[in-house]
């Protein structure tokens, strides 16, 4: 306790410090939790991106095949 400080004032300072510590701690925890959940969501979105890349490759091949079918000259076969 600092000189000239009543026990009530000292308790108030301790209470204010504890309240701030709790508020800061809770904010940091929620922020970390939010980032972790976003990282998880992004990682599952990465799987969707891979799925689309495979489907795109398949559609590209089908498109080339279809173009070849239309461009085939029956007389040349």
């Amino acid at each position: 306790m600092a000189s000239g400080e009543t026990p009530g004032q000292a308790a108030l300072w301790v209470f204010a410090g504890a309240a701030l510590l709790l508020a800061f701690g809770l904010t940091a925890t929620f922020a970390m939790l939010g980032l972790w959940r976003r990282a998880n969501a992004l990682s599952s979105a990465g799987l969707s991106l891979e799925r689309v890349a495979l489907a795109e490759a398949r559609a590209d091949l089908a498109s080339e095949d279809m173009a070849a079918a239309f461009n085939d000259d029956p007389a040349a076969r």
Partner: protein
Amino acid sequence: MKLPVSVQTLASLSDEKLLHAALDLERRRKDLKSEARDLSRSLKRQEERLRREGGMLVGGIAVMALGFIAGPVAGILGWIAAAGAFGLLIPGTMQSASSIADIRADAQRLNQIAVELNLVADAMGLVAAERRRR
């Protein structure tokens, strides 16, 4: 979800209509690819934002910790630094739920695009087979 080309009607289509069906499929494939590219760019932006906010969070926590350590020594300055970090962290925490919803919606649309692209590829195969049959 409907197939872009009906299997039953393919055989009854005229040559010109078969060509139109092929062109429609080709257009749809390009539209889906460009939508997937937009969504992929949006996810990349979210990834960069996550990295930036992760850095901010680590910095914020370090400043908070320093604020608490320096509190009794440096007095009010330590508390101001901690409160500043606290203020920086709040907007990111508040936006987190909406970013997660955005990411999930993008991922869901990407899954739909993958399914539609597979359907378009199947339909293209059918059109090509019909064209070769003729």
